[in-house]
Each structure stands twice: as C-alpha cells, then as structure tokens.
C-alpha cells in the first residue's frame, strides 16, 4: 500500500493485562499516514483497555508485544514521552483537574511537546480559531479542566486538544458517547478537518453512529480481546444492522471479557 517506509503507527502481537487478568490477547495493526481506522466491538471486549495500554496507562500493562511510531519502539515509554512522539488519546471519560484552567493546561501541554516554545507563539490565535470551529465559547478557556463540564463539553475539549497538540496519531476512545446529534455533527466536522495526509486516527467505538460522519478507511472488529475481522466502511453498516452476535458465533469467540 505504501513504499517501504516505516508505517506511522504499528503494534505487534500486543497482550494487555489489568491486575493479572489478560484482557487483550495478541493484536496487530498497521496504520499509515492519511488513514482513518475504526475499532468496533461490543461492551466489555477490551477496546478501551487496548487504547489505555497503547497510551501507557500504568494500570494496563503490556505483557507481550511491541508498539512503534515511525519504526521507533515506544512500548516502554511513559505516557508523556509517547505524547512527545506524536501519540494522543482522546478519552471516553476525561477527568477533572480542579483549579487548573483550560488555557494554562493547554499551554503547559503544548510547551512540553517538541518545538513547544515555537508553537506557543501562535497559541492565542490557534485557540480562538479552533474554539470557533468546535462551537466552544471563549470563556471556556478560563474554566477549570473538565470541572463541572457536561458530557458534550468534555468531548469538545478532547477534540480541541487534538487540534492544538497536533498529534500524528490520535486514538479517539468513544468520542461520540454523551453527544447529542448536533454536537456529534460539530465534533465530527472538527475531526474531519483535523485529518490530513500527515496524520492518522484510530477511532474506538461501540456504535456505528459516528462513522456516518467520520468515514473510516478500515474497520476492525474487536471481540474477546482479539481482532476477528477487518474490512472497509461497509463492515460498520453490517454490524449496525446485524449486531455483534453473528460474528461471535461465526468466530466462536464471545465478548465475555470485562472492559
């Protein structure tokens, strides 16, 4: 599909355990620049665990396998070091940091990335621009991070971070949950605008809904800690119509794993 260059993001035979319980059981994926991928799976299939492990959450240990960004092994890096290599995780349940304003948080985050000081020079302008695109009031910037935010506001802040931190590979975990249809449209537009030929996204979702707006190039079905099928966008429609059960039956793997 691409030349012999290293793919943007790749993981190989990854196993993830939470408190000694194996949740993800050997998964592989290659993502090239400019691609949009979606992982779909029923609740409890281990999708979120995989996302947390890829980002380096200390409670989700990778017991086997490796993760690479542009050929560089990041399996043992801390979350902040992974972020500095260009990885981003838009979270399903973003946590509140009371007393820390959105603007201070964003500045600190940008500054910690490569070329941070340089990038801060246009921070005000960028912030204004992306706030507008995401339908975020500017007063948002002086509120405390996720503190008292509605579900929709939290998700918008996640996408605002995607926009400002400019990661090369963004993992978006259940971005559509908690969004009403209008908000979903705005957020999806935001994501579409952020996708370009130099970056890639990996969406993780239970429902096909968001995929109507952000069209994936590849859909991977994740059941019981494994990818059981990969296809194009049509696979998402099939899942929406038929549910996950037929695949569980077909593959003989059940989704009975705790998320």
């Amino acid at each position, binding site marked *: 599909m691409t030349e012999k260059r290293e793919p943007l993001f790749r993981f190989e035979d990854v196993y993830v355990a939470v408190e000694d319980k194996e949740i993800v059981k050997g998964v592989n994926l290659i993502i090239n620049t400019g691609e949009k991928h979606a992982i779909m799976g029923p609740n409890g299939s281990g999708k979120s665990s995989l996302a947390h492990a890829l980002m380096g959450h200390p409670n989700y240990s990778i017991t086997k396998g490796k993760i690479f960004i542009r050929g560089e092994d990041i399996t043992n890096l801390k979350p*902040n070091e992974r*972020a*500095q290599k260009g990885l981003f995780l838009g979270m399903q349940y973003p*946590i509140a940091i009371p*007393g*820390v304003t959105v603007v201070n948080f964003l500045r600190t985050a940008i500054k*910690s990335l490569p070329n941070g000081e340089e990038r801060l020079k246009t921070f005000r302008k960028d912030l204004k621009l992306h706030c507008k695109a995401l339908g975020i009031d500017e007063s948002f910037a002086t509120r405390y991070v996720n503190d008292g935010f509605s579900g929709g506001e939290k998700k918008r802040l996640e996408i605002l971070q995607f926009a400002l*931190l400019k990661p090369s590979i963004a993992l978006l975990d259940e971005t559509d949950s908690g969004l009403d249809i209008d908000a979903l449209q705005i957020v999806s537009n935001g994501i579409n605008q952020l996708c370009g030929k130099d970056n890639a996204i990996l969406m993780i979702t239970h429902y096909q809904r968001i995929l109507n707006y952000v069209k994936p190039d590849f859909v991977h079905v994740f059941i019981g800690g494994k990818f059981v099928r990969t296809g194009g966008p049509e696979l998402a429609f099939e899942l929406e119509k038929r549910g996950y059960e037929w695949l569980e039956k077909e593959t003989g793997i059940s989704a009975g794993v705790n998320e």
Partner: protein
Amino acid sequence: MSKNKNSMNRNTPSLQTAAEAGRDKKKQIEERISGEYKHGWVTDIEEERILPGLNEDVIRLISKKKNEPDWMLEWRLQAYRHWLTMKEPRWAAIEYSKIDYQTITYYSAPKRENQPKSLDEVDPELLRTYQRLGIPLQEQKLLAGVATDMVFDSVSVATTFQKELEEMGIIFCSFNEAIRNHPDLIKKYIGSVVPYNDNFFAALNSAVFSDGSFCYIPEGVQCPVDLSTYFRINAMNIGQFERTLIIAEKGSYVSYLEGCSAPIRDENQLHAAVVELIALEDAEIKYSTIQNWYPGDKYGLGGIYNFVTKRGWCKGRNSKLSWTQVETGSSITWKYPSCILEGENSIGEFYSVAVATNYQQADTGTKMIHIGKNTRSKIISKGISARHGRNTYRGLVKILESARNAKNYSRCDSLMIGDNCSANTFPTIDVRNTTATTEHEAYTGKVGEEQLFYLMSRGISEEEAISLIVTGFCADIIRKLPLEFSVEAVRLIETMMVLPESVG
C-alpha cells in the same frame, strides 16, 4: 565574596512579574528536581549578640539595648515571670525534641555604631542580602508599590516609604521606634489581643521580643500601598522573637504582607512571634503571609521551629479581618491566626495553604470567636502532604450566646502525594445559640493516578503534572494574595513538589 558582588546584583530581581516568572521556567525545573531550599545562604556581616540563656538580667539587657522606657521593661519582666510558671504545650500533632531555652541566644543585631538614617547608610552587604531574597528596594520598590520594614534577625534595619506614608498620617515603623515615638498607642494596644499570659510562646515572646513592625492607619485613610515586612533569621542559635501590631482606625484600610526565610543550618532554630491586629469600626485589615523558613533537609535535619500566635480583634462594627497564609517552610509549624469578632456585623476570614513535605510537620488552623450580632466568618484551608510530611488542620468556631444570627462557613481540604505522608483534620464547632448557622465541608484525597495519566498523556512530565494538580488544588487561596506574592507562592509550592517516592 567580593568577586561575586556584581553578578549577584545583576541576578537579583525584585519580586517577579508573571512574565518574568515564565522566563525562569528552566531554573524552576532544575530547582524542582533538586527540591532544595533556595534561600539557604549566610550573610557575612558583623553582628552583636549577647550570650545564650534566659534570666531577668538578659531581659533587662535587651530592654536597655533598645533604650526602652521603664514601663516596657516592667511588662517584659511580668511576662517572663509568668512564663516561668507555664508549661510548653504538647497537644499539637507534632513531634520534636525538647527545646532547651537556656541554649538560645535572645538578642543578635547587625553591629553598627549608629542607626542608619536612610537606605544609603545601611550596610551594603545587608542590602544585597535583601536583594537576593528578591525584596524590592528603592526604585524597584516604587515600581512594585511596596513599602518594606526589614527585620534582620532582631533589629529592624530600615523602613522605606516612610515619608510618603507619614504625609497621610500612616505610621509604619519598627516596633522599637514605636515604643519610643508612640508610647501611648503601644501602651494602649500591646497585649490587648494577645495578652502576655496567653500561652507559653506568647509569654516568651512578650519577655524577650527584640523588634518587629508597628503600623497605624488613621481614621478614614486607605493605605495606598501594600505594607510589607521581610523577616530573616541569619545568626546561628538565635531565636527570632518579633512582634507585629497593626491598628486600623475607623473606616481605614490596610493590606499587609509578611515574608520569612532563613539560612540552612543543621541546628533547629526557634521562632516565636506574636501578631496583634485591631480593626475599629468599618475598618479592614488584610494580612498575607508567605512563610518560607528553612524546613530542614530531606532527612529531617535542621529547620525552624515556628511557634506563632497571631490574632486579630474586630473591635468595631462592620470591621473586617482577613488572614491569608502560604506556609511552605519550617520543620515545625504551630500557628492559628484567629479572629475575635466582637463588633456587630464584623467579618473574619482565614485562607490557608500549608505544605508539609520531607519530614515537615504543620499543625495550623484558626479560631473564629463570634461575640457580636450578625458576625460572619469563613475558613478555607488547604493542606498538602508529601513524602513523610504531616499536615494537621486544627480549628475552632465558637459562637457565643450574644452572637445572634452569626454565620460560619468552613472548608478543609487535604491532598496527599505518596503513601508515607499524613493529613489530619480537627475541626471544632461550638455554638451557643439557635440563630447561628455553621457549615462545614471537608475533602481528603490523594493525587489521583487518573489525573496524572490525563496530564501526562498530553506530554506533561510527571513532576510538572503534580505541580499543576497541587497548585490547582490551592488556586482559590493563591488568588487571594496580592499579585507579586501569588507568583512567589506558586513558585515556592512548585519548588517543593519534586518527584515523590516513585522516583526511587
């Protein structure tokens, strides 16, 4: 020493602006990683001190050195005699080895022939010391709008801005000057809020206090600048016993800033201060403290024992007192800035951030005594413990029968970093009438794994993430401080938040 003079001067900014603070980021990180005390140098200056030990002769000598009138000496001796009958309090949640009061030196002063008349006459070495502390002087001072009464060990060195303030009728001078020049005010108010027999450490201070600050705001005057005192302990084995007395006459206003630091010593040094505030009708006093005495090293060796009695008296109707403190220093802190709310509708506030890391122990809080009708008080306390630090909030809200419709709101939050520290909260509420309302909230938590992960997943390092969480935790208090102070407070707190246990 002389070789460094120039560079020292160039590198000694005044209290910084927010922008300057940003530029210092790199330095900050280095400091954060080393986590070392920044103000730990000794000024090489000739000093005059008396031999260690405490008896009536020592007190007479101190009084004589100060050219005090007889009534002052009598008051000191009365306090001393009472102190001899008292026992050192041991009810606080702090542990420390026995203090031998006979090994402490009770008087030390930079040696000089005559008192300086202006800053030009002050020993340049001393001025450089203050510059290194980041205290604004002369032009810097004008820019920062701060008038400073410098208390170096036991003697107030020079007071700036005095002329300008004098024209408004404001008196801002050393305590000794006040004793000589304003004896009526001193006689009337000294010990009126904190009597000499109030407690063990207040009695000791009353007997041996060496200097301090005095501030008088006449009726209707709004003091146009923040008045500021910087205390510094320099000599070895001396105790610093300063007194502060602030009187705000009817309808007046003053904001007062107090900063403290001390050089690094292996021995523990005693600091026992007394602060008395009096607010008359419609008057307001804001008292802000950054306490950054040497906290001891990471093994708990050395550091200041800080036993302080601070109390304000809302004497007049509609008067208001507010204490804001950022306590990051000292190996032991024992301090309960309090308000006596006597005047009708008077208001008392206490905003506090206390950080205890390494082997620091802080037992701090407030007392709000409601006497007058419709009196209100508000307490917001944020305690942060890290490593082996022990942080205790101890508070009393007492609403007397006479305090009809009194109201109190208290909030005591504790944040812990790591598994070896501790946080205690001892709130006491004593209400003697049925029209009063009190509200108490408390939160105790650990710096959360999820918060850390969230920040780190955005590229922020673990240390910086902890700093953000901690400064966020006390943001509401820091915002109460005047700007220059709030910048310094954030920097101090960040400096203390070096990597927790997980690093080792």
